[in-house]
C-alpha cells in the first residue's frame, strides 16, 4: 500500500493555517461594521451629518417609531453637555431567534452623530442599557434598536443643552 507522506514542516503549516482560520471566525462576532477602523484608532474622523450617519449604519432601512416599546430616560434640560445620563429600556423580544442585537445612541447635532453602540445577545435577558453621553448642543437624541432580523425601532427625544460638551 502506498501512503502519501506529509513532512513535519507541512503538518505544522497546516495546523497553523487552521488556527488562523478559527481565530478569524471567533473574532468578528458581535460588532459588525466598526466606528473606527484599526489604522485610524483615535484619529479625528470627518464631520458627518446625521442623515449620512443613518445611511452608513442602516442603509436605506426605515426606522419604525416605537415610543410605546422603548422607554428612554433622558433629562429635558442638561445643564452640562459633557455628562448627559441616558437610560434605555426596550420592551422588545429577547429570544434566541429574535432579539435586540444593537442599541444605537445618535445625537443629531454632534460633530459625529453616533455616540455609542451597545451589542446585546439573547443571554442578556432584556434590552436595557444606560450610559453617560456628551452633547455638543441642544439637539434631538435618537435611540434606535436593531433587531436580529434587521427591523429597526426608534425613539427621538429632544435634550436642551445649556453648555456644550464636545470641546472646541
Amino acid at each position, binding site marked *: 500500500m502506498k501512503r502519501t507522506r506529509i513532512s513535519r514542516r507541512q503538518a505544522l503549516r497546516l495546523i497553523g493555517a487552521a488556527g488562523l482560520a478559527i481565530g478569524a471566525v471567533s473574532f468578528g462576532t458581535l460588532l459588525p461594521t466598526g*466606528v473606527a477602523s484599526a489604522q485610524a*484608532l483615535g484619529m479625528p474622523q470627518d464631520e458627518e451629518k446625521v442623515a449620512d450617519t443613518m445611511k452608513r449604519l442602516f442603509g436605506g432601512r426605515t426606522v419604525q417609531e416605537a415610543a410605546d416599546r422603548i422607554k428612554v430616560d433622558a433629562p429635558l434640560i442638561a445643564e452640562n453637555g459633557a455628562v448627559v445620563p441616558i437610560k434605555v429600556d426596550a420592551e422588545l423580544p429577547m429570544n434566541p431567534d429574535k432579539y435586540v442585537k444593537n442599541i444605537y445612541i445618535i445625537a443629531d447635532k*454632534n460633530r459625529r452623530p453616533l455616540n455609542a453602540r451597545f451589542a*446585546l445577545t439573547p443571554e442578556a435577558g432584556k434590552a436595557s*442599557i444606560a450610559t453617560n*453621553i456628551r452633547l455638543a448642543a441642544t439637539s434631538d437624541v435618537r435611540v434606535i434598536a436593531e433587531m436580529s432580523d434587521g427591523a429597526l425601532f426608534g425613539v427621538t427625544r429632544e435634550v436642551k443643552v445649556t453648555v456644550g460638551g464636545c470641546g472646541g
Partner: protein
Amino acid sequence: MSVGQVRIRVPEKAKAGEVVTVRVLITHPQETLAFKDGKPVARQYNFLHRVEATYNGKKVFEAEMTQAVSQNPLVAFPIKVSEPGTVKVTFFETTGKTYSGEAQIRF
C-alpha cells in the same frame, strides 16, 4: 483617582434565571478633539473605544464607544444569570492599553 480604575456594581444576591443589571464605572478622561482655526488637530486622541464583558468566560456584552461618551464613562447592561460566577469587564483604549475589573455574582 487613577486613570483606568474599573468599579463594578452588581446586586448582592441573585436567583437563577434572574436578569441582573451590572453597572460599570471607569475613571478615564475620554479626551475630546482639540481644535485649531476651526479644524480638529490631526493626532491620536486617547479615549476608550470599546468595552467588552464576559460572564464565566463567555462573552455577554460588547459596546462601541466614541469621544461622544462622557469622561469617567458609565455603562450599565443586563445579564440573565443561571449560575453564580464572575463578570469581567474590559475597556479598550485607543492607545492599545486595556483596563479590566471583575465582580462576583452570588446566589
